[in-house]
């Protein structure tokens, strides 16, 4: 069967797939990302990245915006964003817009 997995690069625009959502977990006092049979506890950085996956900005733009906001090197941030987004993509938690 020939089906292609999405290729994600810095110019990709993505958002959370339907059925994947952020939720405040007040009982455990954390933010969780919920997906089928999965609950991931996210730290503040991961929450910020998920929040930025708005389906409008590319991953490069998101990294540049973070670099400005947090006054951090854009290369490092871009690598963090890409690693996290790749992880979500492998788990089928993302919709690739373009």
């Amino acid at each position, binding site marked *: *069967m020939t089906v292609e*997995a999405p290729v994600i690069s810095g110019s990709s625009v993505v958002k959370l797939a*339907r*059925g994947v959502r952020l*939720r405040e*977990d007040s*009982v455990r006092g954390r933010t969780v990302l919920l997906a089928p049979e999965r609950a991931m506890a996210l*730290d503040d950085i991961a929450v910020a990245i998920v929040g930025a996956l708005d389906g409008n900005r590319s991953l490069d733009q998101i990294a540049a915006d973070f670099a400005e906001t947090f006054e951090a090197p854009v290369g490092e941030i871009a690598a963090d964003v890409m690693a996290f987004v790749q992880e979500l993509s492998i788990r*089928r938690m993302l919709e690739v817009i373009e």
Partner: protein
Amino acid sequence: MTETLTLAADTGRDSRVPPPMAMLAELTHRCPLACPYCSNPIALMPAKEELSTKEWIGVFEQAADLGVLHLHLSGGEPAARRDLVELTQAAASLGLYTNLITSGVGLTAARIEGLADAGLDHIQLSIQGVSPESADRISGYGGSYERKIAVAGWVADAGIPLTVNAVCHRQNMGELDEMIELAIRLKARRIEVATVQFHGWAERNKGALLPTREQADRASQTVAEAREKYQGILVIDYVPADYHSTYPKACMGGWGRVGLNVTPSGRVLPCHAAETIPSLSFDTVRAGSLAKIWYESEAFNAYRGEDWMPELCRACERKTIDFGGCRCQAMALAGDSSATDPVCIRSPLRERLTRKADQLSAESSAALIYRGR
């Protein structure tokens, strides 16, 4: 940046009981299918004893307060409940991640639209095989295969994410490759390949369903290859044949650690087969709160921690990985629910189980005893 909560519950020496992550609500035992491995008990609950709409919604509210994140609406066939959309709406409005586990029979395009509008997060649709002949023979329901294919199309049209559930056993394991491809064609994002577990109805069909060792090895190989081939396309969750495994499964992620089951009449169980352990009695949501049952009931505390474990498990480094294995399986195979799961290579009963498994899987009989018939 992330950690899986179910693993996080186990860190450190903290002996406090963590709140439950997931609840399986068995809304009904009614089901048009008659799968010979059904996980429902042999004694099926009649409709008149089922919790009412209001009672179920009350249970969902308690579950959300208790910390449950994932709610699985199951059965029987949950679509047999006329209030399914209403129950879904109530669950979703509480913020519960709401998943419908269904055979597809009883769902229409309109009803699936209704579920999507009610906020259903996800659907798990079972398949029994890759052709009408093989699938309908296992489900005991003519036309079920065609219906499921139609349902998958309606689910995709409604935009609800889909997982295909494939229970594997000796009679369909040869189709595993095709089941994985079927899941992709049905636009599923995930497939759960679960080798049949021998409780309840499946126990009665062991001679016809137990895979051979060769089949089990091949299935593991197929899954490993497909995971690589379809990375980013299809997530594959896999439960191997535990009679042919070296170590037992971490059943339910540990007794009373991660999840709970509520039966159609409101009895609260640590797992769906727990009622096969005769020394335990189970409380019902009609008589007490879910929180009290989770934290304080005798049944939920029976196999928490390690005090209950035999020395073999208590001294073993795997006790925090598989928690001594499955209590119901220990009951079924060792006659003692506190024994080491006989699947474990370190169990004194393992050799006997291996001989038994080889003997059962060599049986040529394919005659099935159907659920409820």
